[in-house]
């Protein structure tokens, strides 16, 4: 598999996220019903911890998702 220039992809995403955050608006209490929906929570679902576990074992990448960070188990 050829190595691609991951730096450009990464910095482009960071810049896009920064621009997006700069367009924030104030949300009043009576307007926040959509944000309070349980499916809108920013953390991963409780059941995903089992999947995060096997994915961190079966792939070299770990962390960034609140799950396994590479320690605490008989794994790399």
């Amino acid at each position, binding site marked *: *598999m050829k*190595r*691609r220039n*991951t730096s450009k*992809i*990464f*910095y482009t*995403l*960071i810049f896009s*996220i*920064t621009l*997006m*955050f*700069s*367009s*924030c*608006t*104030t*949300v*009043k*209490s009576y*307007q*926040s019903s*959509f*944000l*309070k*929906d*349980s*499916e*809108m*929570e*920013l*953390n991963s*679902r*409780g*059941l995903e*911890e*089992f*999947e995060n*576990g*096997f*994915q961190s*074992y*079966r*792939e*070299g*990448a*770990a*962390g*960034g*998702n*609140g799950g396994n*960070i*590479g*320690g*605490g*188990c*008989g*794994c*790399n």
Partner: protein
Amino acid sequence: MDVDAIKLLNSINKGQIKQLITLLFLATLQLTFLNTRLFGQQSDSLSTEIQIPSEKKPVQIDFMASYYNQDGNHSAVTGGEGSEDLNDYASTIKINIPLKKNKELRFDNKISHFTSASTDNIDPTTISAASRHDTHIEINANIIKKVVGKRNFDYNISLGGANEAHFASFNGGFGFRKAIEKSQSEIGVKTHFIMDAWGPYYNLSRLYPNDYYGTGDSPQNNRYTFQTALYYNQIINEKLQASITLDIIQQFGLLSTPYNRIYFSDQINIDIERLPSYKMRIPVSSRLNYYAANWLIIRSSYRFYWDSFELKAHTASLELPLKINRFFSLYPFYRYHIQYGNKYFEKKGDHISTNTYYTSDYDVSDLQSHFIGGGFKWIPFRKTKKRTTSRLNMKSVEMRAGYYRRNDDFHSWIISGGFSFNVLRKEETGK
């Protein structure tokens, strides 16, 4: 810190790391400046992982269980070729207990029993060895304190441990979180420490493959992991919110797996997997959730990963909860992962014996994977107008299943389910 770690630190492209940190710092400054100009009305706190503690809130209990099955042909225990058949049965119970003075106590306990064809081959002379199955037990406790008033922040302290037949672990950590109401954002920082020990109850050499005739030359059997995580959540508008998380993870000690075999192109004798005794990992992830319509929500995430063994990865996922009604939702999901493997990986029989470090673990090779599946979530709702006298209230029921496949024909599937319920205080039931 040993010589390997010092050389590695010097060889890391510090320019790139500095650029990354500078970029994130500037982004944070920009966000802080822009958001403090928005002098809006008071808004509710963001929905977060940590509940606001109160002695009047109910006790919450979550129970989850899963079954996982995998298979493949690149077992690292047998040098990169061999069955990877494994079955895992796991269950987790989590209990949140609100205490007085805005404190909350959390316990979680996980038990996982697995049978593995690959670890069975640590001893190649037997048909079935004691290592064919094992049980992982994990217990963690977390105490959270909320400081109310003008300062308005939370902090938490955690302790825990885990145990397997060949492995033991201890961990502890500290976290801090603050909601910024004017900017409708939240910042947090977490530090975590894990100390692992391979073969804690006996000499490490008992974990080596039976056909390995070396001495191991491993000065220690411990592994230390230090994590610092920073996160930032932001409400963008009434239907859109996002988060960024940066983890910096450093590991020291025995970072290889003592029973993974290595075969060489220039000699017959095998060796065990050997890796440097220092590793830095940096995953950066973001999430974006959008309330597209009354019946559709879009949940997306992306993660970039880099480590000092030169492994880079991109992971993206998309989930589309379809709200059938207020209490029931179905959701399909898809996850794609691509990684460019670490510099010490070679296939079975391709390693050179004069190299210092080597691995044939396909989990750290160049690979792509796809994970697809679906699930549902149901929130029971009582239609009766009578005040409930029951102290036990079901909060939600959820199930999901998925199929995972890598481009080296490794595949697995998992099914998991769980429910959560509240145990009301006596005052709330009127009893």
